[in-house]
């Protein structure tokens, strides 16, 4: 009689063991990945043309230790993406994982920090109480939490203002305390939505330094912003979203590099020279004050035109390989998508 229950228990163990093996195998396959999404979509409604409004088929991967940027104009789906990754909303289709766990699982939230855009907190708490509250949500307490709070308040420059209540905070102070609460658990992955919003230039610079330090410590940072100049020196990889769809993705250095594009900047350009360049179908941009920029596919063509221009009396201001800015990449991507 006792054989049957033993067999059942054994079978259960085998099934559980097999399940654990599959889970471990799955984790191993995704090791090194902080985030992975597959055709993740969140459709709120459809517009007059029947086009879905929301986020459409977002697939991307973020490796551990990267600073990843999610760029896009207002309403492009950045915040929706963040909310999906944090399990605040549910996808209409597609899947996603954070540290190998499905979206919304509490398991990965232990390792994650989040600073929302324009953060709101309980107004009646002061800086220390606020961080104590958030630390408590991670089960932290006692001297461990107290020393972490002190460390973070120094880090974000709020130690001297630690007893001020949140209701009396400026926008910049809210942003600083928001950054501190997002790091209370010493997260491996930080989601930062418009981090430098409301900060003065020095505050913004401090935050940039903070992100770079986090990257040096091996943390993964997921930045959402439309402030492209801020993102360019920080991000390793970016995704540009427009109207809920990915319109550009890649490593920042690759996106900024343009193969074989040279730029010649001239001043004192005569009408005759302009006509000659246009006749030769050379791409030009004419600015005020007789300044002209010409673009070339190869270096020798640029040198030929420079010699021709000098002979025609124009002044050569600059000649060299053209480096795009992230802003140009963004405008090209968003403009191209439209």
């Amino acid at each position, binding site marked *: 009689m006792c054989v049957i229950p033993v067999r059942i228990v054994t079978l259960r163990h085998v099934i559980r063991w097999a399940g654990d093996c599959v889970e471990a195998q799955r984790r191993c396959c995704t090791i090194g990945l902080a985030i992975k999404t597959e055709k993740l979509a969140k459709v709120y409604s459809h517009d007059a043309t029947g086009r879905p409004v929301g986020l459409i088929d977002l697939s991307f991967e973020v490796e551990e230790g990267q600073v990843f940027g999610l760029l896009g104009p207002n309403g492009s789906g950045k915040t929706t993406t963040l*909310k999906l990754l*944090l*399990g*605040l*909303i*549910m996808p209409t289709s597609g899947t996603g994982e954070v540290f190998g766990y499905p979206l919304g699982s*509490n398991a990965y*939230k*232990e390792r*994650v920090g*989040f600073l*929302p855009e324009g*953060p*709101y*907190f*309980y*107004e*009646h*708490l002061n800086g220390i109480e606020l961080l104590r*509250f*958030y630390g*408590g*949500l*991670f*089960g932290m*307490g006692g001297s461990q939490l107290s020393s972490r709070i002190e460390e973070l308040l120094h880090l974000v420059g709020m130690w001297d203002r630690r007893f001020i209540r949140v209701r009396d905070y400026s926008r910049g102070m809210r942003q600083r305390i*928001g950054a501190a*609460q997002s790091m209370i*658990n010493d997260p491996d992955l930080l*989601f930062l939505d418009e981090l430098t919003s409301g900060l003065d230039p020095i505050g913004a610079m401090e935050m940039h330094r903070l992100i770079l330090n986090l990257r040096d410590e091996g943390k993964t940072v997921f930045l959402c912003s439309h402030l492209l100049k801020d993102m360019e020196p920080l991000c390793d990889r970016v995704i540009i979203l427009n109207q809920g769809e990915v319109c550009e993705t890649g490593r920042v250095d690759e996106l900024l590099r343009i193969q074989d594009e040279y730029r010649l900047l001239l001043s004192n350009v005569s009408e005759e020279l302009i006509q000659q360049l246009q006749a030769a179908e050379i791409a030009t941009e004419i600015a005020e004050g007789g300044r002209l920029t010409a673009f070339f596919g190869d270096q020798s063509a640029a040198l030929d035109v420079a010699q021709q221009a000098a002979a025609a009396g124009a002044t050569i201001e600059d000649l060299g390989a053209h480096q795009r800015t992230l802003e140009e990449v963004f405008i090209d991507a968003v403009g191209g998508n439209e």
Partner: protein
Amino acid sequence: MRPVLRVARATFHEAWRRRFLNGILVFAILIIGSSWVFAYLQPGAELKMMVDTGLGAIRFFGMLIAVFLGTRLVPDEIERRTIHTILAKPVSRAQFLFGKFIGGAATVLFNMLLMGVAFYIVFALKAPAFQAAKPEDALILQSMYSNIAKAVVLSFFEAFLVLGIAVVAATIFTWIMSVIFTFFIYFVGQMSDFFQQLSDPDRGASKFAQIVLGAAYKILPHFEIFDIREAILSGTYTPWSMLFKAMGQGVAYLIVVLLIGYLVFNEREV
């Protein structure tokens, strides 16, 4: 459990900064404090009138606080987006909802305790004088001291149930709809015995009435079980077993309500 207590504590501290709640409490204590004045409206039954007014005010204002606080607890977090930073931490929605309820219940309890203490003081000061004018009430007065405490305890449980319904209604409906819904359930729940009588086939109830009113009796919370004022006024002894039965029913109903709330809130987007 720690996240639940953290959320509850923050909710409790924040609730005390809600002006409407402070306003209700001040008004309630004014009414309760002057309950002895209302007693003179019924000459010859001043003691009963005072008890009726005082306990009635505690129940009514406790219910009012529960409705207006309960229907704001979760929606305020969503509107002010404070919920985002909380649910992004390892806090499940069940823990969050339960924490909000516990914090709200602590607020309601503390408010009603203040009302209860205020009434006890008024009662202790004025009741002997009223009883002296009517010696036959001596026995009733003796039993009243403990019975008033029992009535106040039952009022707590009633208010907790109302709070639970309000919290859950607010996760489903808009604010105004959830207020209306909670008041509706409260007032209809006061009449659940009446539904049972109307659905009784021996009293000529149709098959349809038996099904509809019988279902209403079974589904609705029975708020009248929390009201023992009549027993107190008549000097009838209220056994503890009856109290525990009422509390048990209230807690069981509350668990079901919060479970429904969790199921709804778990699917809700914030």
